[in-house]
């Protein structure tokens, strides 16, 4: 899974030309991944302002607060699931993602746990 982390709202700071370039690159990569059969799925997430964090409350029970769990400049913005031959290939796809290519975010590449196991 390719986890996309970027600075919320960075898109508004771009010129229209830059925005079109970025969205165009996303379309190109998605088309390639669909054609190669590597794309499994993915979602973009809403602005972190719409996050609710649920945690255990100090006096027992739970409490719900506005905002994400982590206070950081970069936030979890979406994910992409790919099915590729090697982890290196997944990293290669991540390196081409515009957030990385344009220096506005980072992608984290992590294997998805399978519900299966080999015999020991």
């Amino acid at each position, binding site marked *: 899974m390719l986890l996309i982390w970027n600075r919320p709202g960075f898109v508004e700071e771009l010129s229209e030309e830059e925005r079109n370039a970025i969205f165009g690159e996303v379309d190109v990569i998605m088309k390639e991944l669909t054609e190669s*059969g590597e*794309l499994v799925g993915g979602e973009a997430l809403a602005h972190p302002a719409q996050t609710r964090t649920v945690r255990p409350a100090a006096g027992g029970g739970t409490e719900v607060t506005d905002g994400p769990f982590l206070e950081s400049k970069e936030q979890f913005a979406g994910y992409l699931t790919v099915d590729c*031959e090697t982890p290196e290939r997944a990293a290669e796809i991540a390196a081409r993602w515009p957030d990385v290519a344009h220096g506005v975010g980072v992608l984290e590449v992590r294997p998805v*746990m*399978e519900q*299966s*196991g080999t*015999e020991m």
Partner: protein
Amino acid sequence: MTDRAVEDLLRALAPQVLGVLVRRHGQFYACEDAVQEALLAAATQWPAQGVPDHPRSWLVTVATRRLTDEWRSERARRDREVAVAVREPAYAAVAPAADEEPPSGDDTLKLLFLCCHTALTVSAQVALTLRAVGGLSTAEIARAYLVPEATMSQRIRRAKQRIEAAGARFAMPSAADRDARLGAVLHVLYLIFNEGYTASSGAELHRAELTGEAIRLARELRRLLPDDGEVAGLLALMLLTDAHRGARTGPGGELVPLAEQDRGRWDRAGIEEGVALVTEALTWSAPGPYQVQAAIAAVHAEAPAAADTDWPQIVALYRVLARLAPNPMVTLNQAAAVAMVDGPRAGLALLAPLDADERTAGHHRLAAVRAHLLELAGDRDAARAAYLAAARATISLPERHYLEVRAARLTGDR
């Protein structure tokens, strides 16, 4: 006939029908599409209306009609473009009667070799084999491999394109090519089997169908190539492995290792067939890796309890396997067996060089085996650290739980 029986019949007929069409018309790509449509038509009509008297002929006729419809509409487009008034005769009229075609096992074999073409990636070989030879629909294959249908359909489409681009013919490869290609065929069938066997929760049903399909195709391959010891070996290995299925997960879906399985829940019929197959094959065939692995599985299967396992015999077989197919994963299993005969320290010594091998360094299986041997040697702290390292490195959820429990046990009861 039940839906299930119709499905089984269609899967058996799929490669025969595809073989007839490809032999008659060439054009694997177009024929495969036409056969898929015919299979879908049969799957919807037969359960309600009954199976026709000659089901194979019915499928050949329907698929041929689809194919000629496709060609006609293409030709019509071309004709309009070049304004040629002459119409070609209908292809259906010149095609031989469908029921004249004898069923041909050779066709299934040629299809297997074609689908496992070396120009394809392994995942494409698997997808195409399941569809063209196994007769599974794209939707079924996508469900079994937990990917969207569109992804699987692209994968199959590109595989077919790549085969045509590579200029592959629907014919048996030359004798020189055959062994290498048969190796790919056996590998693909084993992958399909493992994909079904290692799955547990979630899409369990569809995955169990994969083991069944792999075994069915291996049986078919053995019928076609009765003189190949490795084909017999692979079938035996699958049967012996599949025989553990009922005993390898506990009530909570957790993995139960071989040594702790309730052997009363092993499938005796599968074991008997597998043991007989591999024993017989080894009398006339030079041993190959699948036969030796099946022989190891047979030794395990024949022990009434884990403690009765003939470990010296297993160590000897691993030595043969390490010579036939040297591979760090074989060394890993060999080390575990050696530990049972010569003690855990002897096993640990065999593991040492694997840290320098990039294929196993950092691999969770190396850490897991090392942890087990360290535990046997009584080195609890090192064993616990190795179990946790293995738990961090695996991407299998049940396996991670198993390893974490082993590590926790070493902390808890001292």
